[in-house]
């Protein structure tokens, strides 16, 4: 009942808004290059289905690749930090510099270095830069948050650093890593889209480029269709990561445990 309610209410609202939108656009005779009706957006979506799907695939693959590499790189560097204070002290400030420098500002430079002929590599690097830092900082925090008494206990039984890392620090850091992944997944998508905008060239064929292209041609319905696909992509990513978090934590972590009432 409660669950059905929580799903049905937003859906009902969405349908109501769509109907109101359609009716208002028709009744007020709003120009399609200002605000197209949902039916026109749907027609554009069907009409350009093949090219939109190809663009979706481009954006999706760049986002996922950047995200996976960000998780691998962030966790690996955090592990390195946890093992060596020296490396952490040396590298951490530069990781922060990368994070606080807006990706839009770095993008032209990266594009020149990588070259427009490898545009997807440039996009990947830019999306990775945005997605990487939350993983690094949260994993570093998580690895450092291990219970001190448990560390003592591990030492008492002669545990190696590897055993402490794999059996104590890493499982303990898992909630931190999964939380960071939810943030990072969304950021990877944002990074990919922003980088495409900056690249602004015909060789980039992702959804952001479709939006720019359709905008230039005043195909507003197609812009909406591409925009809708971007939202769906972001939502799917978020739900997938939320599910992963639940699957890995629900047996033991307070954040994922359903309270008994």
């Amino acid at each position: 009942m409660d669950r059905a309610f929580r799903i049905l209410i937003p859906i009902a609202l969405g349908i109501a808004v769509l109907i109101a939108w359609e009716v208002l656009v028709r009744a007020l005779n709003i120009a399609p290059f200002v605000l197209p009706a949902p039916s026109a957006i749907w027609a554009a979506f069907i009409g350009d289905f093949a090219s939109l799907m190809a663009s979706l695939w481009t954006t999706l693959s760049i986002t996922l690749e950047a995200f996976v590499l960000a998780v691998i790189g962030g966790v690996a560097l955090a592990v390195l930090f946890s093992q060596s204070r020296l490396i952490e002290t040396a590298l951490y400030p530069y990781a922060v510099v990368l994070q606080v420098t807006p990706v839009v500002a770095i993008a032209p430079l990266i594009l020149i270095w990588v070259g427009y002929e490898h545009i997807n590599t440039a996009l990947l690097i830019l999306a990775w830069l945005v997605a990487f830092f939350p993983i690094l900082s949260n994993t570093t925090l998580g690895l450092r948050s291990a219970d001190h008494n448990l560390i003592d206990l591990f030492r008492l039984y002669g545990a190696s650093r590897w055993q402490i890392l794999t059996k104590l620090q890493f499982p303990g850091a898992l909630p931190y890593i999964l939380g960071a992944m939810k943030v990072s997944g969304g950021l990877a998508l944002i990074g990919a889209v922003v980088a495409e905008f900056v690249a602004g060239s015909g060789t980039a064929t992702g959804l952001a480029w479709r939006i720019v292209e359709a905008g230039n041609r005043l195909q507003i319905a197609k812009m909406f269709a591409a925009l809708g696909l971007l939202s769906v992509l972001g939502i799917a990513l978020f739900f997938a990561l939320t599910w992963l978090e639940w699957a890995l934590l629900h047996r033991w972590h307070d954040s994922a445990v359903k309270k008994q009432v």
Partner: protein
Amino acid sequence: MDLLSLSGITKIFGNGVAALGPMDLSIAQGEFVSLLGPSGCGKSTALRIIAQLLSPSAGHVNFAHGRPETSFVFQEPTLMPWADALTNTRLPLELLHKPRRDADDAAMRALARVGLAGFEHAFPRELSGGMKMRVSLARALAAQPKLLLMDEPFAALDEMTRQSLNDDIIKLAHEDHLTVIFVTHSVFESAYLSSRVVVMSPRPGRITADLSLNPPPNRDADYRMSAHYSDNAKQISAALRDGMERAA
């Protein structure tokens, strides 16, 4: 026969606080020694030095026959929340690279001995405070230690749970011929459990009294009513007060 002895142990922490000593203490094989004192008397510090989790500022710990297999029970259950009772109990054996099947068998036995048969696959959050402490105890026993160090392990538990764990630890220590060093701030707990009570006074922690109790090997609810027990408690209480006055 001494199992271990402390000679001239002092501990001054990095912030300049003199926590302990100098402290001299010999502990024989099979003794159940309580370190009793108010908080801040360095009893936990002494325990950590014996466990070699902390190094003393001066003095040394001597083990007559090399360092015995040692287990440590903390005030908190200190379990891994992502692992079930069996995995938590198996931990010391896993760290010592014992074969998985032997480790599992030993962990199952240890859980059964502390009354948790059937709870092998329960996660810590599914267990009560007393049961979590029992898992912690099972983990300590699974390592088959000769020396068991306990740092106010039952202080956070309710009175009933605490008494039943007290009975269990006496029985288990007896069965395994364990030497136990038990840190507590409870006069009654030390009187019930120990064959010997070492009373300490604070800032810096020093030994002010060393009492032998000769308790019967089997203790139960009746023993808590006996004259022997209450005399012991009185004697310990007096020594504690005396030590505090001298320190003040």
